[in-house]
């Protein structure tokens, strides 16, 4: 089997390498990919949209439909993870550790978590005793990561950045929180229901901003028609893009957290990495 695979892969690779002989050289400004629509984007984007970042302008304005359904793809991936894995049968056994003495209580057949005072700490099977440095460093770092993520979203049409990138950074800060503390703490801070609502809200913001353009007299995703709502002069298209990017960022952030939480805990949301 492996031998056949090796032969197939080598043949395909040789064929592809033979084909590259016809390709344009690396960095050739007159290669076919850089001749037609790409030049139009570079020359006209600032004039038409007043967004300095061409990539954001093309992603959210010229190719707005593509990005909208891309957000829907992300939403469907999160929905699929939830539907495949979510398991609502809570576990029966719980462990509580008395912090001053280190004595561990084992509660059997407990349907719900007990409400305990500050002396008791909830434990799961991945509990490690000394992670003070991890916790402290991550507690200091996480707010800065989140502010950076918000900056990346907000500056998406002026500098490298955008909704997908900022959303992923924000989602990774949530994942860092779950790794440095434990999954339980994250799930308590941000409820599953809120994450689901945020994911749907992000897609709704995108589709909503795009749909508002229609009663204002334009086509779907024609941000120029938002001028009466956004008194920003010639920058109205850039502002429309910013709104759409915020929607994408919210959706991606929530979906990253949903995928992570469901996969590491096998859908039970109790313990994990």
């Amino acid at each position, binding site marked *: *089997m*492996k031998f056949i*695979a*090796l032969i*197939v*892969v*080598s043949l*395909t*690779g040789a064929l*592809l*390498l033979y084909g*590259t*002989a016809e*390709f*344009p*050289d*690396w*960095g*050739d*400004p007159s*290669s076919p*990919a*850089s001749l037609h*629509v*790409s*030049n139009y*984007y*570079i*020359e006209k*984007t*600032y004039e038409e949209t007043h967004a*300095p*970042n*061409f*990539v954001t302008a*093309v*992603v959210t304005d010229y*190719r707005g439909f*593509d990005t909208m359904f*891309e957000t829907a*793809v*992300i939403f*469907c*991936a*999160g929905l*699929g*993870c939830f539907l*495949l*894995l979510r398991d609502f049968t809570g576990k029966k056994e719980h462990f509580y550790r008395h912090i001053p003495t280190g004595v561990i209580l084992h509660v059997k057949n407990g349907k719900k978590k007990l409400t305990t005072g500050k002396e008791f700490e909830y434990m799961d099977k991945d509990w490690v005793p000394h992670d003070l440095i991890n916790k402290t460093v991550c507690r200091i770092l996480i707010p800065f990561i989140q502010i950076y993520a918000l900056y990346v979203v907000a500056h998406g049409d*002026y*500098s*490298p950045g955008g909704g*997908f990138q900022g959303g*992923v950074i924000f989602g990774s800060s949530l994942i860092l929180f779950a790794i440095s503390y434990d999954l339980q703490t994250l799930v308590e801070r941000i409820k599953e229901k809120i994450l689901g609502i945020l994911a749907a809200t992000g897609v709704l913001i995108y589709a909503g901003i795009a749909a508002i353009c229609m009663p204002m007299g334009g086509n779907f995703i024609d941000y120029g028609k938002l001028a009466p709502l956004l008194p920003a002069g010639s920058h109205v298209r850039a502002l429309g893009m910013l709104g759409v990017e915020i929607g994408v960022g919210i959706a*991606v952030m929530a979906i990253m957290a949903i*995928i992570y939480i*469901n*996969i590491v805990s*096998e*859908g039970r949301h109790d313990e994990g990495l």
Partner: protein
Amino acid sequence: MNDLLPLIVAKYNYWMYVILMMIGLYAMIAKNNLVKKVVGMNIFQTAIILFYVSIGYKTDASIPIIKSSDTAHGMVVRAADYINPLTSCLMLTAIVVSVATFGFAMALIVRIYRRYQTLEEDELRMRLSE
């Protein structure tokens, strides 16, 4: 041989992408473990991303964000000054799709492991035929 070397040097980005892509394809075909197959799929997608980004590159061009000197009224933006934004856009969305497929594949793998307690393909086939 003398003809081949300049050909490779001028187009070595394509060689890189073909090699990476074949590593991914080999992993998808030959590996027995499902997680390794998914990793192979990710390498394959990365090769495609590398290919697209490299065909958008132009020598002596800057990133596709307009320079402040070009924003003044009446200035003409020259296309040769900026790299191709279109390939970057397409790959932005491709990265999103790869995250989505990877997350969904991992979810499927977790389900398979919960049901069959294994991720090796031959063992799975044995369990299925039982």
